[in-house]
């Protein structure tokens, strides 16, 4: 049980540079038929990074085109979306998406947010041909796995755009960034690496330099907090 989960987490941790490896671990741990990892929304745009099969890829594409569906909801709420009986109970929330998949060979669909701290950038979508439910432990495991994928995705995206990280700043601004990293890791109970990633991602999203964001954090103008299980930024 937990052995498979631990192995899957390891595999995900190591798959940092290769999105192709993102899906398999979900299939190894959970009773689902297919998985896909996509970014959606403004932060990183809408794109499927990895899909275990054609149908998984098509489900994501449909959601991009229609602008609705479980991955959008997971992204918007920052919480998992669990729909074990997607055909029997077409959700009023997704009229177009539900209609589009009515003939597809799918019974259940689940989505887990890709997020780092307060930054939400997409979702892991899972589907099952046979009707299936995820129990609480499985949902927690999927959420934890999606969190690992979320860090990889954000890190890669930031590397790709070469957003001004610490290289453009001088030593003094780096010092501020280290201090702000300490504040954020205490606010959100994250590792120092993740806290720094939150600052970097936030700076990217807000089109600010890391130094500016760090200064706002140190001056108390920007606060991150855990709130009802989710994470929020308040200015």
């Amino acid at each position: 049980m937990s052995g498979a989960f631990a192995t899957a987490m390891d595999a995900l941790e190591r798959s940092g540079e290769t999105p192709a490896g993102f899906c398999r671990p979900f299939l190894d741990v959970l009773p689902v038929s297919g998985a896909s990892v996509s970014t959606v929304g403004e932060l990183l745009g809408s794109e499927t990074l990895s899909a275990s099969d054609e149908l998984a890829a098509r489900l994501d594409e449909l959601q991009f085109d229609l602008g609705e569906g479980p991955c959008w909801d997971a992204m918007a709420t920052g919480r998992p979306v669990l729909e074990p009986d997607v055909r029997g109970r077409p959700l009023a929330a997704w009229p177009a998406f539900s209609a589009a998949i009515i003939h597809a060979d799918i019974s259940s669909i689940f989505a887990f947010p890709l997020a780092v701290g307060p930054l939400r950038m997409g979702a892991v979508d899972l589907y099952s041909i046979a009707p299936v439910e995820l129990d609480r432990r499985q949902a927690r495991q999927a959420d934890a796995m999606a969190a690992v994928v979320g860090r990889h995705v954000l890190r890669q995206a930031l590397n790709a755009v070469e957003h001004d990280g610490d290289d453009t700043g001088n030593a003094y601004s780096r010092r501020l960034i280290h201090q702000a990293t300490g504040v954020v890791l205490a606010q959100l109970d994250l590792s120092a690496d993740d806290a720094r990633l939150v600052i970097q991602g936030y700076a990217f999203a807000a089109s600010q330099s890391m130094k500016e964001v760090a200064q706002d954090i140190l001056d108390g103008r920007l606060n991150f907090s855990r709130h009802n299980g989710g994470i929020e930024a308040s200015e």
Partner: protein
Amino acid sequence: MTELTREDRLLQTFASLADTLVDDYDVVDLLQMLVDTCSDLLDTTAAGILLADATGTLDVVASTSEAGRLVEMMQLSAEAGPCVESFVTGRVVSVPDIGESPEEWSLFRESALAQGFASVHAVPLRLRETTIGTLNLLRDTVGELDPQDQTAARAFADVATIGILHERSIRETALLAEQLQGALNSRIVIEQAKGVVAHTHGVPIDEAFALIRTYARSHRLGISQVAARIVDRSLTLDT
């Protein structure tokens, strides 16, 4: 009760520095002790030690005050000012009147003058031909540093160099770079720890450093060690 002369106190300081170097020690602690001694015993208002990373960029590792403005001013000096001049040339750079310093140093000059500093004395930290950083002494009066203080500053710079490099015989440049990076990395963790404590204790960043330092002292631990435990959340300072 006998009044200790400055010479007595200098001697005591060097004796305790020598003790420190024999044992296991925290390099940031040692450098902090050095800059504090400079401002206590020499005719100096503030002092700071900067080290170069692998790319040659100088970074503050210890300063008498953690006040942001002082640190920032030293960083400006490390970009264009006596600090980088001393680092690049490997020589002592004395600026008896900051107001008269070169135009290229204007950012440093304005920041220093605004904080009430009038003169600066920068001493390279040198190991044979390699310069690894600088010791900077700032004063609120114009003029050269007194010759005895200059000699003492030189000796402090040498102790700092030895302290950073731990081992007496470092022949490999790679190892040298590694040890320098080690000292700079502990500084990163200290900055992060300051952020954690500032948040958990609701105090300004400068005060956070004082809390960490006090804890380290009273528990006979190194600052870097305490900082690392604060950052990995295995230690919470009492409020």
